[in-house]
C-alpha cells in the first residue's frame, strides 16, 4: 500500500480518535457496568417491608388491585421470582401523556401485594435511579439525560468511532501479521503504547464494529423509521402499528377475574418453548378487546431480542398464542436477524458467562480509548538532548490533552463509584439519592484537579481516589451487615455479593495502577508530561510546571 494513503488514514484515525476517545471511554466504562444493571439495582435496593405471596394467590391480587386502581389496567407486571429490587409481586407505572418515551424521571411507580387479610396493599415506590443513570451515561456518552439531541451526539461519536476503526485497520494492515499479539515493553514508550492499543483494537475488532454500528442505529432509529415509512411505505407503515379505533357505541368491558391463573399461563409458555425460563408476566389492556399478556423470560441457549430476554404473547383469557415473534429460540429468520444486533450490543445471549465476557471486553474498550490518547501524547513528547542539563518544556497541547484524558476518564470512574456509595448512604441518612449530583461533582472536580495539578500528579491522586471510592462499595455493605442500626443494609444474594466482590477487585486494580503511576512520576524520565513538575531556581510557588502541570 502506498505510504501516502497510509498517512491519510493515520491522520483520519488520529483525529477521529482524539475527538471521540474520552466520550467513548465513558460510554464503554458505563456500558461495561450496565451489563450488570440488574445486580446493581439489587445491590442498591433497600430491604422491602412488603410481604411476598405464593403465585397461587396472584389471581386474587390482580383482580382486587385492578378493581381498586383502574390506572393499573393499561399495563402491569406480575413477577414470578423474588429479588431485592422487586419489593412486591405486582407493579405498574404511570407516565404523563406529554412525557418523552425515554424520560424516566416523569414515571411514577406503584407496587402491590396482599396483606395478611388478603386485601390489596398498594404503595407508591421509588426504585433507585442509579442503574438507569449509569445506563444513560453509557447511551449518551456521559451527558446527563437521554434525549433526542443527546442521542444524536452519541450517533455522531459512534459514526466517528466507526471511521476510526476502519482507518485504524488500514493503517495497521502493512504490519498486521508481523505484529499480531505483539506487546513490547521497553524504553520505546511510543512503541509500547502503540502495541497496547493495537492488541485490543485488532483482536476485539468485531466487538467494536458491532458496538459502533448498532450505536449509530440506536441513535437515529426514529429518524430512520420515519424516512423508511415515507420513502418506501408511503406513510402507511406507522399507521399499521397504531391501535384500531374502537367501533362506535359502547364497548364491552372484560372482567380480569376471568383471566387464566398465572400458573396456567406460565405452564402454557413452558409447553410452547421448553428451554424458555419465564421471569414475569406483563399484562396489557386486560379489560379491552385486545388484551395480551407477555410472558417474559430468557433462554440461554438462544439469542434474545432484548437485554431482559424475550417474550411469548398470549391471550390472558384463553391462553392462545398471539405471537412468538419475540420469543428467544423461536423467531423467524428476519426477526432473528434484527434481534441479533440487539443481542450482540446488549450481551443478550449465552447467560452469565457472556455477561462477564462483555464486562471485560467493555473495560478493554475503555482502555483502548485511554491508551489511544496516551499514544497521542507520547507521540508529541519533546525528548531531552543528551548534553542538555534540564528537560525541555513539553508541548502545550500534549499537556492539556494528558490532563483532559486523566481528568475525564478517572473522573468518570470516581463519579460512578461515588454515586453508588453515596446513593446508599444518602438513603440511610434519610436524603434523596442524587446520583447525577454526586457523579458530576466528582467528574468535574477531577477534571479541574487534573488541569490544576498536572496530568502526572493528578493521575496518582485520582487513581487513589478511585481506589478509595470503589473500596467504599463493599465497605458500605460490610457496615450494613455489621451495624444494621446504622440504616445501611447488605444483601446476601449472589448478584449483590457479586457487586461487592467486583468492586473489591476493581479497588485492588486501581491501587496497583496508582502505585505504578506514582513510580513513573518519581522515577521515570523527566522529559515527559507524566513527570513530576520540576521547579527552577527563582520560580514562584505554583510555577514549577514545565513538564507535567499546565498551570
Amino acid at each position: 500500500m502506498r505510504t501516502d494513503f497510509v498517512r491519510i488514514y493515520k491522520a483520519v484515525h488520529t483525529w477521529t480518535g482524539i475527538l471521540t476517545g474520552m466520550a467513548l471511554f465513558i460510554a464503554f466504562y458505563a456500558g461495561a457496568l450496565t451489563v450488570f444493571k440488574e445486580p446493581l439495582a439489587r445491590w442498591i435496593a433497600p430491604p422491602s417491608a412488603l410481604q411476598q405471596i405464593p403465585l397461587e394467590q396472584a389471581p386474587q391480587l390482580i383482580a382486587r388491585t385492578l378493581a381498586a386502581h383502574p390506572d393499573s389496567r393499561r399495563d402491569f407486571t406480575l413477577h414470578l421470582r423474588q429479588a431485592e429490587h422487586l419489593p412486591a409481586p405486582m407493579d405498574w407505572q404511570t407516565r404523563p401523556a406529554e412525557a418523552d418515551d425515554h424520560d424516566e424521571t416523569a414515571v411514577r411507580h406503584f407496587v402491590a401485594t396482599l396483606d395478611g387479610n388478603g386485601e390489596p396493599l398498594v404503595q407508591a415506590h421509588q426504585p433507585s435511579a442509579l442503574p438507569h443513570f449509569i445506563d444513560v451515561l453509557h447511551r449518551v456518552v456521559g451527558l446527563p439525560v437521554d434525549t433526542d439531541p443527546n442521542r444524536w451526539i452519541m450517533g455522531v461519536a459512534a459514526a466517528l468511532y466507526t471511521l476510526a476503526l476502519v482507518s485504524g485497520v488500514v493503517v495497521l494492515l502493512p504490519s498486521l501479521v508481523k505484529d499480531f499479539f505483539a506487546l513490547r515493553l521497553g524504553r520505546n514508550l511510543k512503541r509500547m503504547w502503540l502495541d497496547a492499543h493495537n492488541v485490543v483494537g485488532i483482536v476485539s475488532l468485531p466487538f467494536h464494529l458491532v458496538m459502533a454500528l448498532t450505536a449509530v442505529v440506536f441513535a437515529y432509529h426514529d429518524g430512520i423509521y420515519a424516512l423508511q415509512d415515507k420513502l418506501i411505505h408511503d406513510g402507511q407503515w406507522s399507521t399499521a402499528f397504531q391501535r384500531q379505533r374502537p367501533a362506535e357505541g359502547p364497548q364491552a368491558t372484560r372482567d380480569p377475574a376471568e383471566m387464566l391463573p398465572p400458573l396456567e399461563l406460565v405452564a402454557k409458555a413452558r409447553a410452547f418453548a421448553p428451554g424458555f425460563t419465564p421471569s414475569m408476566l406483563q399484562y396489557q389492556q386486560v379489560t379491552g378487546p385486545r388484551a395480551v399478556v407477555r410472558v417474559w423470560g430468557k433462554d440461554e441457549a438462544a439469542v434474545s431480542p432484548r437485554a431482559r430476554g424475550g417474550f411469548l404473547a398470549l391471550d390472558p383469557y384463553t391462553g392462545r398464542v398471539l405471537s412468538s415473534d419475540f420469543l428467544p429460540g423461536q423467531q423467524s429468520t428476519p426477526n432473528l436477524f434484527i434481534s441479533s444486533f440487539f443481542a450482540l450490543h446488549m450481551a443478550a445471549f449465552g447467560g452469565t458467562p457472556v455477561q462477564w465476557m462483555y464486562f471485560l471486553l467493555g473495560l478493554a474498550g475503555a482502555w483502548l480509548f485511554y491508551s489511544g490518547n496516551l499514544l497521542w501524547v507520547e507521540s508529541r513528547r519533546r525528548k531531552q538532548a543528551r548534553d542538555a542539563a534540564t528537560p525541555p518544556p513539553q508541548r502545550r497541547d500534549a499537556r492539556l490533552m494528558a490532563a483532559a484524558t486523566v481528568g475525564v476518564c478517572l473522573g468518570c470512574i470516581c463519579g460512578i463509584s461515588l454515586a453508588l456509595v453515596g446513593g446508599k448512604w444518602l438513603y440511610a441518612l434519610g436524603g434523596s439519592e442524587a446520583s447525577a449530583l454526586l457523579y458530576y461533582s466528582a467528574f468535574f472536580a477531577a477534571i479541574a484537579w487534573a488541569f490544576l495539578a498536572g496530568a502526572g500528579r493528578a493521575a496518582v491522586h485520582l487513581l487513589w481516589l478511585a481506589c478509595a471510592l470503589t473500596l467504599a462499595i463493599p465497605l458500605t455493605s460490610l457496615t450494613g451487615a455489621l451495624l444494621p442500626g446504622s440504616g445501611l443494609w447488605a444483601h446476601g444474594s449472589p448478584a449483590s455479593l457479586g457487586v461487592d466482590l467486583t468492586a473489591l477487585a476493581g479497588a485492588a486494580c486501581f491501587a496497583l495502577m496508582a502505585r505504578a503511576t506514582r513510580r513513573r512520576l518519581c522515577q521515570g524520565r523527566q522529559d515527559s508530561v507524566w513527570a513530576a513538575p520540576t521547579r527552577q531556581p527563582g520560580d514562584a510557588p505554583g510555577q514549577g510546571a514545565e513538564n507535567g502541570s499546565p498551570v
Partner: protein
Amino acid sequence: MNAYTFTGLLLSLAGGTAIYLASPNQRWCRRPLPRTPARLGGTLLLALGCFSLTRVLQPLTTSFVFITWLMLVFTLLPYIGALGRPGGES
C-alpha cells in the same frame, strides 16, 4: 454454568493459548512453541470447544459465544504475558 459450556470455554481457552504460544510475539516463554504442531493442536482444541458449546447452545448462539470468548482470550493473553515479564517503564 452448564458443564458443556464450561468444557467448551475451557477447551477454547487451551486452544487459544496454544496458538498464542506459537506466535513469535508471545511473552510467556523464552521461545515460542513449535509453530505447526502448536497451531494444529490449538485449532483442534478450538474445534472441540466449539463442538462442546453446540451441545447446549443453538448454532447462532454458539458462534456468538465462541467468537466473543476468543476475542477476550486473545486480548488478555498478551497482557498477562506483559504483566508476568515487565520489561520497561510505563
